[in-house]
Structures are given as structure tokens and as C-alpha cells.
């Protein structure tokens, strides 16, 4: 197996033309080996879109083990690699990508990044979130997705926000029925007012699904979250930071609540491990 992996990696390293590189990255991605992660991550920076697409697909398939390296890539000043990393994180749905997705869904200048982020915000692995963090995170995702659905000028990004909102509506806990109503009201508006026929059609499909309670399952495994207490602590701090930045006056709740919550969740999780 190790030999197999190293020969696949060598093929990527020694590829001397764009089609060969593409083929080598596709083969490496198809092997589903965690040892391939650094090389697949490297392929995001080659400035070869075909190879990057194949690498993103491979990283999404590998899922959670690829997340730390992807998050690291976000901090580098390589815009293209960062955009591909965001697409991979959106596809994986790992909570460690949440705050990045919240930021780029509404603001990135590349529509392919906004598109991937909008879907990813809905299809996040919500079942991994601890209860109290879940509510804050879903509230932020809802705000971002409603903004995209109302404001983005690209049909494909609005289409993606509909997919995200549908997934979010299914994940929203019973404790927040008003959030589900907000999504339904947004759908009702878009169903007749969105300028794109494709977007309107996707809204009709989402409405039918919500009405008949059809949940599109993407084969999500119901395994427990692999995230550490520190991971959750960081996500919460970043969410808190984001909320502080975007609103001087919070619509509901005292900001100190979240700070206290961060502490109590960390304690709970530390105690549990």
C-alpha cells in the first residue's frame, strides 16, 4: 500500500505536462489514501484548474482528516489556493470551516467561492455541534444565507443559497420554529420574484421537499464529532468575534452571554474527555 501511494505521489511530482499532471492528481485522489493529503493540498497551488478540481474532490472524499491542513492553507497569501481550500472545506462540511464560509459566502469576489460557501453553510455537519453552540452557529448561517439569497447578483450563487437554506431548514432544531418560517417566507418571495427561472425552479423543489418533509440525505454518517474541546472553543470565539464586528448593537442577547457560554462549553467538553 505504501509503495502504491509513493508511486502515485511520484507521478504527481514528476508530471511534465498539464494533462499528465491532471491524470496523476486524479489517480492520487481516486486512491482515497490519507497519506495523499499533503500532495493533494499542494495541487491546489499549481495553477492548474483541472488538477485543482480533482484535488478538491479527493480531499472532500477524505473528509475530516484533510481539514487541519486546509485550514492552514487559508492563512497563506495565495488567493487561488485559498479559494480551492474553501471549496474543499465547504464540501467536507467540517465546523472548523464555518466561520470562513460565513465570511466568504457574502463577500468573496469569486462567484465559484461564494457558490460553494453558500451550499456548505447549509450542509455543515450540524449534528456534530454541541447544543448551545449549534444555536449561535445556525443563526449566523441563516443570516448569511438570507443575505446571499436576497442580494447576490449571480443566479448560481442565489441557486446555491436555496440549496443551503433547504438543508439548514432541515437541520434547524425544534426550538427555533421561527427560523424555519423565515426560510419559508424567503422561499415564497423568491418563488415568484427571482429573475432567474433556474433559481425559481430550485425554490419550488425546496418548497415541495419541505412540505413533504423529504430530507435529501447525502449519506451523512452519524458518527460523533472528532473535534476537540479546543476546536469548539476556537470556533465559538471566532463566531463571537464575528458577531461583535458585524453589529454594534446585538438584536438579541447580551454579548457577554456568549463569552460565558464559551467557558462553560469548554469545561463540559474537557470534563467529557
Amino acid at each position, binding site marked *: 500500500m505504501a509503495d502504491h501511494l509513493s508511486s502515485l505521489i511520484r507521478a504527481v511530482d514528476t508530471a511534465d505536462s498539464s494533462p499528465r499532471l491532471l491524470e496523476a492528481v486524479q489517480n492520487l485522489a481516486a486512491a482515497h489514501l490519507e497519506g495523499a493529503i499533503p500532495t493533494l493540498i499542494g495541487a491546489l497551488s499549481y495553477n492548474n484548474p483541472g488538477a485543482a478540481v480533482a484535488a478538491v474532490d479527493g480531499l472532500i472524499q477524505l473528509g475530516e482528516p484533510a481539514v487541519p491542513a486546509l485550514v492552514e492553507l487559508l492563512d497563506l497569501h495565495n488567493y487561488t489556493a485559498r479559494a480551492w481550500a474553501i471549496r474543499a472545506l465547504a464540501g467536507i462540511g467540517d465546523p472548523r470551516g464555518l466561520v470562513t464560509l460565513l465570511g466568504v459566502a457574502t463577500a468573496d469576489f469569486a462567484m465559484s467561492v461564494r457558490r460553494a460557501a453558500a451550499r456548505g453553510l447549509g450542509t455543515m455537519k450540524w449534528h456534530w455541534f454541541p447544543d448551545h453552540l449549534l444555536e449561535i452557529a445556525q443563526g449566523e448561517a441563516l443570516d448569511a444565507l438570507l443575505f446571499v439569497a436576497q442580494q447576490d447578483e449571480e443566479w448560481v450563487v442565489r441557486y446555491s443559497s436555496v440549496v443551503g437554506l433547504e438543508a439548514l431548514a432541515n437541520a434547524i432544531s425544534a426550538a427555533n420554529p421561527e427560523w424555519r418560517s423565515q426560510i419559508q417566507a424567503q422561499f415564497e418571495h423568491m418563488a415568484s420574484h427571482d429573475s432567474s427561472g433556474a433559481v425559481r*425552479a430550485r425554490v419550488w423543489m425546496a418548497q415541495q421537499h419541505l412540505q413533504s418533509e423529504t430530507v435529501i440525505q447525502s449519506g451523512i454518517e452519524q458518527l460523533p464529532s472528532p473535534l476537540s474541546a479546543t476546536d469548539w472553543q476556537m470556533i465559538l470565539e471566532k463566531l463571537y468575534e464575528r458577531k461583535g464586528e458585524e453589529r454594534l448593537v446585538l438584536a438579541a442577547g447580551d454579548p457577554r452571554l456568549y463569552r460565558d457560554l464559551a467557558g462553560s462549553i469548554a469545561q463540559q467538553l474537557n470534563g467529557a474527555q
Partner: protein
Amino acid sequence: MDNESDIRSDSSLTVDQAIANLQGEDLGLRVYAAWWLGRFRVDAPEAVDILMAALEDEDDRTHAGGYPLRRNAARALGKLGDYRAVPALMRALECSDFYVREAAAQSLEMLADGSCIARLRELLNNQIPGTLPAREPPQLTQPFDAILEALGTLGAVDAIADILPFLEHEVPRIQYAAARCMYQLTPNPQVANQYGDRLVHALANDDLQLRRAVLADLGAIGYLPAAEAIAQTPAENSLKLISLKGVLEKQLLHTTPPHLSDGALKVMVLMDDLL
């Protein structure tokens, strides 16, 4: 959602300024103003008037004899939706500059006025004197793909005999344009699907540029049996999504909202996976 008014107000030019620039001395500003009026769809009658006049421009020439201002004016006029431009664009089909003729054919397609069909057929058959070939290889004598696409959109069934030979043209891009056109012009669905299937086979081409062109063709005709193949084609997801959008929106023509056909539902499931 129409955001173009916002873009207009953000932009450095204003409508009045663009119209003034197009009539000014500076050739660079003129060619930019012609593009700008099309980009922001400034359909004021005055803008259309000066763009039509720009189709006769003799000041702006390249070393090789091309007419950059005429090219931009011809492209812009297609986007403005003013049928007064049709006769001027038909005259532009006689221009010596290949790219002016190409832009004029594309704009005539967008304006969807059948009065130009006879002239397009003459151009397709290379019967208009004084038209020079493209300078880049393969140095086509005429912008055949643009002409074929226009004839298909305009429903030029009388032109079928002229179109059929292009299914075997040496340039693949032109074969595909002919297949797309024949799909649109063939009333019998079974026969039409043979042309659609040709395009589906063409998605297997090794050349990415050609695969991209075929994705656009399949989206333009909204060929439902191509949906799976479109989703599987090695190309950018954004282009596959645009192609599938064409297929989806064609499906919507056959149902009353919010009812969705099985085909539409299937296409959306494919699109969701490409986001």
C-alpha cells in the same frame, strides 16, 4: 433581480459621457464607449443611433485593415434589443473584417428578426463579395459557427440544404454549430435527437476548448438527454452549471409553475452536486 442600474451608477462613465465619447476624437475612448453602452445595456434611442453610425466608421483601423469600433458597435447593438439596428447589422455582414461579420451575425441572432435570413444564407455560402477571411488559423472564410447558430435560432428551415454540408466541416467547432442548428430546425423529435446525440458524443473530445463549446451548445438547445453527460464532462463546474441551467429552463417551458417535470427535478439534483 436587476443590478445593472447599480453597476451603472458605480461606474466611472455616465450614459451622457459615453454617448459623447463615442462621437469624440479619441479613438480609444470611442471603442470603449461602444463596449460600455452594450455592457450596461443603454438602450436610449440616441445611443442606438450613434452605435448604428459607428458601424460605418472609417477612422478606427488596425494595421491589418480591421475595424475595432465597428466590431464593438455590432456586439453592443445585439444587446440593446432595438430592431431599428437590423438593416445596419445586415449591411455589416458585408464588411471586409471577419470579426465585424461575426459580431453582426451574433447580434442578428439576439435580435431574432427573421428578415436577415436570406442575407445570412448568402454569407454562409460565401456569396458576398469583398469579405476577407479571418487572419488567425484556420483562416476561415466566414464566421460559419455564428451564422449557423443564428440560422438555428431564427428557425430558418428553408436553409437546411445549405446547412447540412457543415455537419462534415473540417473544423469540429463548426460541425457542432451545424448539429446545434439542425437540432433546432428539425421538427421530428427522433430525428432532432440524432443531432443532439452528436453533441453529447462531442463532449468526449480531448480538447477542453471544444468541450466548453459543446457545453454551451447543449445548454443553448436545452437537450435533456445530455444532462448526465454534461455533469460528467471534465470541465469547470461553472460552465457545466450554465449548460444545465439551459436544460432546466427548457424543461420549465413545458410545465405550469410551480409544477416541475421529472426531467427538471433530475437536472436540479445534478446541479446541486456541482455547486
